[in-house]
């Protein structure tokens, strides 16, 4: 299964506004994406509660995986999002 690992760039971590933007984007992908920290249990990336429970702060390495058609493109989009400081984004 394709997977990608990236460090969370947002200064407040995957919390508050960055978590909201990420979860909304994950829900828009046509394919289910999962997210985990290290070898921890993966949670659906479209789950606000799952994503918050990762406790991912600024700099935490998170791993995304997805399977099926469009998986690579979905991972590409979400990894790019995590690599930006979403605290500083408008809208």
């Amino acid at each position, binding site marked *: 299964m394709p997977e990608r690992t990236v460090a969370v760039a947002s200064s*407040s*971590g995957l*919390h*508050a*506004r960055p*978590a*909201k933007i990420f*979860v*909304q984007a994950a829900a828009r992908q046509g394919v289910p994406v999962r997210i985990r920290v290290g070898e921890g249990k993966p*949670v*659906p990336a*479209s*789950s*606000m*509660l*799952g994503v*918050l*429970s*990762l*406790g991912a*702060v600024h700099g935490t390495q998170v791993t995304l995986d997805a399977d099926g058609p469009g998986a690579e493109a979905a991972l590409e989009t979400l990894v790019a999002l995590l690599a930006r400081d979403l605290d500083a984004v408008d809208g």
Partner: protein
Amino acid sequence: MGEALRGLGVSPGRTAGPVIRIAGPPALPDPRPVTDAVAEAAVAARALDAVAEDLERRAAAAGDPEAADILEAQAMMARDPMLADGCAENCDAGMDAPHALDAAFAVHRRALVDAGGYFAERAADLDDLRNRAVAAALGLPTPGVPAPGHPFVLVAEDLSPADTAGLDDTVLALVTEKGGPTGHTAILARGRGLPAVVGCAGALTLDDGTLVSVDGATGEVGTGLTSSDAERVRTAGARERAERGRGEGPGRTADGHPVKLLLNIGSARDLADGAEGVGLFRTEFLFLGRRTEPSLEEQVAAYSAVFSRTPLVVVRTLDAGTDKPLPFLGLPQEPNPALGVRGLRVARLLPGVLDTQLEAIARAADATGAEPWVMAPMVTTAGEAAEFASRARARGIARVGVMVEVPAAALHADRLLREADFLSIGTNDLSQYTLAADRQHPGLADLLDPWQPALLELIGRCAEAGRAAGKPVGVCGEAAGDPRLAPVLAGLGVTSLSMAAVCVPDVRAALAARTLAECRELAAEALAADPRPPSS
């Protein structure tokens, strides 16, 4: 009109309107056997939907984008697929909808708490969602502050800070069964000019929609009104408010003895016309909800915004600690925070926070040409007063004072005044410590009554020390805004009264109605009075 309920009037003004009660968290009934797991799961799913829709509606209506963001994030939690799946699994395992919701929320709550830090703080949001969803599944009213879309009188057992932060302009008045004159509800109501009655037994027996009149001065809550009665009370209340606002000029007794009328403010937003300056600039509001200390520059800007608009400002340095925790201070929990590291005592552990604040005040003074007075909260000994004064003066602050909130400080007011230029008496804490009664305790309101002669005696002692030293002694606690008490405080020798803007007109009128000699007689009577018996 019908019979009246009676409580303690804590914020003056009259109004009338329909009651809406805040529902408490729903009680979970005993589990019931489930025959149709699919139907139970549907009930749970509908409850979650209803909660999410309500939050989305409020997010769309919220004026401020930050509030909308928070509400949207909460709605996303209610719509979380993991939560819905968990509920369905619980129903399959034989739980009824309310228990399935409760158990599903509990799993995620634990996960957030385990994640720690600011993730754990979201557990309170989840509890709120859980209460709303369980209430929806049980067909109970939604907990939390209602938003009916029309003016109403809010009735509650008590109001939490979170409840009061969410109040909008449709709230006409506040009535609570619990609470005292120095509690959160009272302070908020006075700050916003909302009539309020606290400690009102039986208030929760009023049905939603009942028309009531509220008199925030006498504490009377009238029932049995027709809608034209209610209209008449509202009109009269509005007229009285307009008349009260007309008085102006400095505070004076009938024979011209000056007693300065000052404002208690939290930021430049609270400044209002009609007072002679600011007697208490609470700086905590700059620090609340912060994960990091506000920068020197940010503090300079916030202080300058106030200094540039008013000639006399008394700034209180940060009043936080284990009683009012601030995340960035990182103080450990204490078993008895009221007697722990709070107020000036925080500087024992974190001197840098105070030094930065004093530096910011000094720079804001330079930038605006103002000459702020600066005082520290929770000073206990003359030694502490001397230490604080030297730190403030080292930064060029000319007028340095201390707050008197601890009986030891009041007893040694004369020694404190050898170190400080003025005293400001915080009656809320001074009552709590003098009468050994927790400010938050709903059953001890009689002990916290500012008419307690022992409290008045300590105030008089401070005022006497001020007179001997030729230095000002003010009162900035809630007692200062009470028009019945103002002449007594003037008679005790207090030189200024600092209060919420809404209280200024009544206090000015109360002082103007009496000569200084009459104020002194009132003070002597109050000192000699028997303490009030506990109210039943």
